[in-house]
């Protein structure tokens, strides 16, 4: 239950957003089960699982570490079981990011061959990156893009004994030194995944310290390929985000239109669908069906990707509906005709909600399957234009079956989007100096990345919104990405007017530049963009990232990609706040390493704090300590 304390429904509501509480009431009245209902039915949850001290690997198990049994049947203690479970979570994250990058590389190759509806969106970045990785940057763009995609694919697939080029080329020197000492500079990501999975099999690697180092190594691979690599390749293909305006929250849904929701993480099919939805013959088809037009909305990270590029390749984007928890509730409006499910975060509960209405679910990625969903339009770069057209036609057909029971909440907020290192440099006149000066003179005390998932443990989006508010109040500039972006967008924190809620220093900077105090960096994969930004700041100041007045927070982290992200942030040298307590507390050793000892090795550490105000205070204290360290 929500405990944000902002209104008379405190203690009985489920979300920080009025629209979501309104829709949950409607879903309850209609007998549609949601995440919120199922969460209650799962209480109480098992303490062994919560602490990570349950092992289900072999048929002697499941074993649990209990007051009477300090070891599993094989002799593995709490430290081994916890570290092994954590690495398995990170492997999942690394694998999913690799899938995203591979789809992208395939698309770039097909685009270079002129077989997709896309074109190279940022040729300047293509040439710049190609130059850095040692390609002949003077070659024609298509040829260069094809070569770059080949490099990415070979980096994904090479052996774990061949160091990743992107790490060597893009990581700050001081980081490389720290990682070399720990022997955690990774090789090819798929090989690292194989090694890590092999290590986590029963009785192969049972040394908790080595398992944690492997988690760090895998997370660095994820950081530079899955995050930085994906973001860069995505910019090259779809264009680097440029400043733009959009809208967020369920009130953006227009019941008069054929409504398509792009849900997931990989914005390729979604971009093709936005383009298809603008073609006159499909618009005509929608009008003939009785609709005013066709609208493509965003959900979760695919939506953030589209919003970030709505001044370019995603022009025509109709707005962001919400994050992970919102999926069943936008279906419950009765006004959503088709949801296209791309990789990751399509919950099985969505099908039951969709069946209660007319909504059609279509998987658009070969690895996404959901019981009962029979429509698969699996993305293939060469067929994307035709597939997008087919999806829009399916949506128009489904629109004709729409019922009369429709309810769309009024709530929506404006949002400024399109922040990236490049667009920030553009806004600052080509140099980071104005931003660095503001940090040096204390108008901005520091920068915090409040990123990652949403989670119902403390009420939907309560923690991400509260931490963002508390930080901007303390003159800390906030960067949001992932589901946290949807959270703060809906609450108006990504409008320039939100500067009024910031402390005097940050407020003045925001007003001078006309920017919000919470900047949208995009999807969860755009956490890579934050890595690029921190690297740029560290290089400009000539210090290691761990010396900067910056911090990361994943206040509502939920799934495995976030585990790899979080460990990467620690490896990168950042204080990394986690909201829900990760399943490691059953091991005193792992808990101590992650929250204390690792700081001596990488400069970063995990900070666990469930109270969002106390978490913001601790992040602020950390930032002030780093300022003192730099003498500013």
């Amino acid at each position, binding site marked *: 239950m929500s405990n944000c304390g902002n209104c008379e429904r405190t203690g009985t509501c489920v979300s920080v957003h009025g629209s979501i509480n309104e829709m949950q009431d409607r879903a309850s009245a209609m007998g549609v089960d949601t995440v919120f209902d199922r969460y209650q039915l799962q209480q*109480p949850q098992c303490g*062994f699982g919560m602490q990570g001290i349950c092992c289900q690997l072999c048929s002697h198990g499941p074993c*649990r570490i209990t007051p*009477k049994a300090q070891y599993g049947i094989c002799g593995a203690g709490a430290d081994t079981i916890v570290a092994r479970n954590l690495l398995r979570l990170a492997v999942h994250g690394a694998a999913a990011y690799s899938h995203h990058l591979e789809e992208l590389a395939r698309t770039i190759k097909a685009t270079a061959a002129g077989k997709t509806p896309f074109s190279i969106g940022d040729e300047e970045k293509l040439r710049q990156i190609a130059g850095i990785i040692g390609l002949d940057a003077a070659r024609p763009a298509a040829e260069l893009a094809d070569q770059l995609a080949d490099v990415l694919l070979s980096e994904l697939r090479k052996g774990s004994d061949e160091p990743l080029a992107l790490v060597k080329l893009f990581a700050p020197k001081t980081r490389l030194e720290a990682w070399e000492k720990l022997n955690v500079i990774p090789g090819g990501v798929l090989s690292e995944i194989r090694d890590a999975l092999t290590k986590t099999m029963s009785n192969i690697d049972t040394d908790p310290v080595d398992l944690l180092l492997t988690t760090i190594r895998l997370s660095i691979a994820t950081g530079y390929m899955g995050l930085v690599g994906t973001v860069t390749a995505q910019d090259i293909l779809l264009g680097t985000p440029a400043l733009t305006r959009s809208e967020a929250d369920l009130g953006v849904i227009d019941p008069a239109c054929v409504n398509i929701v792009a849900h997931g993480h990989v914005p390729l099919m979604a971009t093709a669908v936005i383009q298809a939805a603008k073609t006159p013959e499909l618009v005509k088809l929608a009008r003939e069906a009785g609709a005013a037009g066709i609208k493509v909305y965003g959900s979760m990270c695919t939506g953030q990707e589209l919003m970030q590029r709505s001044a370019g390749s995603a022009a025509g984007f109709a707005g962001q509906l919400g994050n992970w928890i919102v999926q069943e509730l936008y279906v419950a409006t009765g006004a959503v005709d088709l949801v296209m499910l791309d990789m990751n975060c399509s919950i099985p509960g969505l099908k039951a909600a969709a069946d209660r209405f007319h909504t059609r679910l279509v998987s658009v990625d070969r690895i996404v399957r959901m019981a009962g969903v029979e429509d698969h339009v699996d993305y293939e770069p060469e067929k994307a234009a035709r597939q997008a057209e087919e999806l829009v036609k399916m949506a128009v057909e489904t629109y004709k079956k729409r019922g009369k029971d429709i309810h769309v909440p009024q709530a929506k907020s404006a949002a400024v989007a399109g922040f990236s290192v490049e667009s920030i440099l553009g806004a600052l006149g080509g140099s980071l100096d104005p931003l660095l000066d503001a940090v040096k003179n204390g108008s901005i005390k520091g920068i915090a990345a409040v990123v990652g998932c949403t989670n119902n443990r403390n009420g939907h989006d309560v923690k991400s919104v509260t931490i963002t508010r508390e930080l901007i109040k303390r003159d800390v500039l906030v960067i949001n990405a992932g589901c946290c972006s949807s959270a703060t967008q809906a609450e108006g924190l990504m409008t320039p007017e939100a500067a009024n809620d910031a402390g005097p220093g940050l407020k003045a900077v925001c007003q001078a530049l006309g920017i919000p105090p919470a900047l949208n960096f995009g999807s969860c994969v755009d956490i890579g963009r934050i890595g690029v930004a921190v690297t740029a700041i560290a290089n400009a100041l000539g210090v290691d990232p761990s010396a900067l007045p910056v911090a990361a927070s994943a206040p509502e982290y939920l799934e495995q990609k976030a585990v790899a992200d979080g460990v990467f942030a620690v490896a990168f040298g950042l204080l990394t706040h986690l909201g829900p307590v990760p399943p490691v507390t059953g091991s005193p050793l792992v808990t101590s390493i992650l929250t204390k000892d690792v700081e001596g090795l990488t400069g970063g550490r995990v900070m666990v704090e469930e109270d969002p105000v106390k978490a913001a205070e601790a992040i602020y204290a950390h930032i002030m300590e780093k300022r003192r360290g730099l003498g500013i």
Partner: protein
Amino acid sequence: MKSIMIDLDACNGCLTCTLACAAAHSRSGSIVGAMQEKTPARIFIEAVNGRAVPVTCRHCEEPACAEACMTGAMRKDSLTGLVSNEGHEQKCVGCWMCIMACPYGAVTAHPRERVALKCDGCPGLPQPACVAACPNRALRYEEPAFFAAGRSRDAACSAAQAS
């Protein structure tokens, strides 16, 4: 007489007691078998603000359920002290008076048969199945005075450390 005593702070909500209870009352006698037979558990773990709280029959000295029972099926055995509606001459008819009378909600309705269902104290076992299975020693089968002595020692230790 020994009783099921609960150390609330030690319970972490793992639900092992509910599985062991169901197993002990199933035909198969195993946890997996009980899950397949859908044997109901007779001990409940309630969640209160995220905290797990075990609730089970206290086998009261003057049981409200037995008082309310119309057929006489629900009775307290004077020898064992256990309160049960099973194994007696009189049959439970499922009038649910016992359910309405019990202040703890420890008596419930069988999900498929028209009989009341409650903890029978696992007669014949050295200790109730839930207690034997608890990995955290949150459930104990002890003389109440022995449990109290442990508590009073703990309280005394804390007081001494604090002073």
